[in-house]
């Protein structure tokens, strides 16, 4: 990395990636990326398709483990603990680092059961009453409670796309994660639903570390405080969002945000 980074170093980052490289078989998809994530800043990953931003995001909760040929080098820590260490329990890691996907993927179960799924498998609720509280709290935080409180037993898949995505955010929140990774959460949604999700991201900031991958540069500018620009597997520029968009240091970043390519 060539740019100044002094203003970005965080004393006690929630998550911290150092010189992370990802390989799919012989092909290198990520070429040495270092980034810190904390609770106070939303971090946005931008870049053209295939630049590695989603791949990198998925290394942060080891979802790349599901791809047999993927291999990760470098160090990623959560509260100072290496998440790729053999002692790390992947299941526990994913409960602490939740994920929201590009396409809303509610389970084909009721709204209630969608939220209760995580707390149930992790044993977070002592009983039915406890679970009711968790479900209500999660749906409220996801900004969905008022819309669905009278039909918690309806299927989650019957909701609109935007509601489904907020249900998925609520589902991730329900297991009390520390970090939430969002992989282009609005790319399948209309502008109104997108606005609601963005509003939600603002509300969630401070409580959770949030990393969002987005294709939409305006969205990155609206929701994030830190922006990382990826290109061809490299982290080209990483900085305060307003700097990146008003005063990019790298030629490639400038070309991308002015729409020269991407």
């Amino acid at each position, binding site marked *: 990395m060539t740019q100044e980074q002094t203003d970005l170093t965080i004393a006690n980052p929630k998550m911290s990636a150092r010189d992370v490289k990802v390989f799919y078989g012989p092909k290198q998809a990520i070429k040495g990326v270092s980034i810190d994530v904390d609770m106070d800043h939303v971090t946005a990953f931008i870049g053209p398709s295939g630049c590695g931003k989603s791949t990198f995001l998925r290394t942060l909760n080891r979802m790349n483990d*599901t791809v047999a040929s993927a291999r990760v080098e470098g160090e990623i820590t959560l509260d100072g603990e290496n998440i790729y260490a053999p002692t790390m329990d992947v299941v526990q890691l*994913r*409960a602490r680092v939740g*994920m929201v*996907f590009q396409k809303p993927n509610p389970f*084909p179960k009721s709204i209630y059961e969608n939220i209760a799924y*995580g707390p149930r498998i992790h044993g977070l609720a002592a009983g039915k009453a406890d679970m009711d509280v968790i479900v209500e709290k999660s749906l409220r935080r996801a900004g969905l409670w008022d819309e669905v409180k009278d039909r918690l037993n309806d299927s989650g898949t019957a909701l609109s796309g935007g509601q489904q995505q907020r249900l998925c955010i609520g589902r*991730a929140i329900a297991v009390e994660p520390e970090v939430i990774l969002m992989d282009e959460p609005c790319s399948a949604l209309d502008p109104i639903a997108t606005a609601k999700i963005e509003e939600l991201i603002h509300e969630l900031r401070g409580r959770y570390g949030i990393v969002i991958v987005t294709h939409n540069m305006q969205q990155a500018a609206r929701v994030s405080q830190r922006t990382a620009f990826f290109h061809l597997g490299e982290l080209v520029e990483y900085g305060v969002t307003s700097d990146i968009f008003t005063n990019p240091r790298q030629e490639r970043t400038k070309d991308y945000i002015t729409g020269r390519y991407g």
Partner: protein
Amino acid sequence: MTGPAILLLLAGLGAIAWVSARARALRLQTVARATGRRDAVHSLPGYHGWYVALWTLIPAGLFLAVWANVSPGLVTQAVLADPAAQSLPLDAFSRSAVLGEARAIATGLQSGAFNPASQALVEPYSAALNTYGVAGAVLALILAFAGGAYAFTRVRPDFRARTRVERLVMATLLVASLLAIVTTLGIVASLLWESFRFFSMVNPIDFLFGLKWSPQSAAMGYGNDDAFGAVPLFWGTIFIGAIIAMIVAIPLGLMSAVYLTQYASSTVRKWMKPILEVLAGVPTVVYGYFAALTVAPALRDLAVSVGIHGASSESALAAGLVMGVMIIPFVSSMADDSIAAVPQSMRDGSLAMGATTSETITRVLIPAALPGVVGGVLLAVSRAIGETMIVVMAAGLAANMTANPFASVTTVTTQIVQLLTGDQEFDSAKTLAAFALGLVLFIVTLLLNIVALRVVKKYREAYE
């Protein structure tokens, strides 16, 4: 003139028609093309050739097919009109025996007559055969020439032979597909008809709900009442095919599908899936003797050694277990498809919540794939209850109503085989009962298939 010779002659005519029509079309088109108009020429010369050749062959061929069915009757009539036929015996049976013998001698299948009456008929028989044979051949050739000539006159540069040939190809394909449908309808009609005859002798209520099955006693003249209660057979069929076999096949099939889709590496999957599918290719008769000779005696010994009474060497358990193994590939391949059809995003969603693979499978994948799995199981059941060879060899004949898996039960298919093997008279309730059983089996498997396919289809739509 013999059949093969006529067919050969027709084929030759067809070839000549093709060549000459093609040549004519080529010549005419060369002339027409010289006029320079774009629509002067329509089809390639080859299509004209086919058009004329088909007109030569099809009417003549159809005529020959009809003639082959009609002429024996005409020949017999001609023979009966002969004065030598006056001495024929009057009863239908010996009459047809004499006629048959005379025909066999006339066509050269038999060299001498056992019955002097037939010897007298040989002469008129060969005369009639000859007359009608020549008549048929001549008519066929006339038709071939007429058809060919008609088509040949239509060969013009702008004649749409290509469209006509296309239409004929379509008609041929339609006939081919209708043939299978018509055959099926014929089978169903015969099932219905024979069952109707059976139900005119035996009350359908007694048949469907009666608890005693002893067709032999009915055949021996003890009357048809309460000898044809099919409930023990239905029970045996369900017990073996839908209960014991499914207890084996559903868990094993489902678990192997889960392993293959979720845990196995692609190399393991590449090897294991075909091997599992080989199970489906083992002939059922092999499963049958495996059940009868290996599994059944072992099970009986086991039952006896632990002190179970009524253990038979033809147990429901032996047949059911082996049938279950046979069905595993059906269940596993249907379950495999349904689980693989659950979107990857569903699986990712669950894993990203911190669920383990097995939690993901039991709580998300299987519930989501359930309709497809159920459809697969229903298809497997319908296959199992229609299965014959294993139960014929391993399940026994005693129509018992028992839930003891070590006892002998019998199934619908076993009884159909029993009723229809050996010497039969086709007007007794005993024989006709086979058709009624077949009808019930047909209806049940048809319903199972319809329900299963609807379930599977509806489920597929849910993810598209």
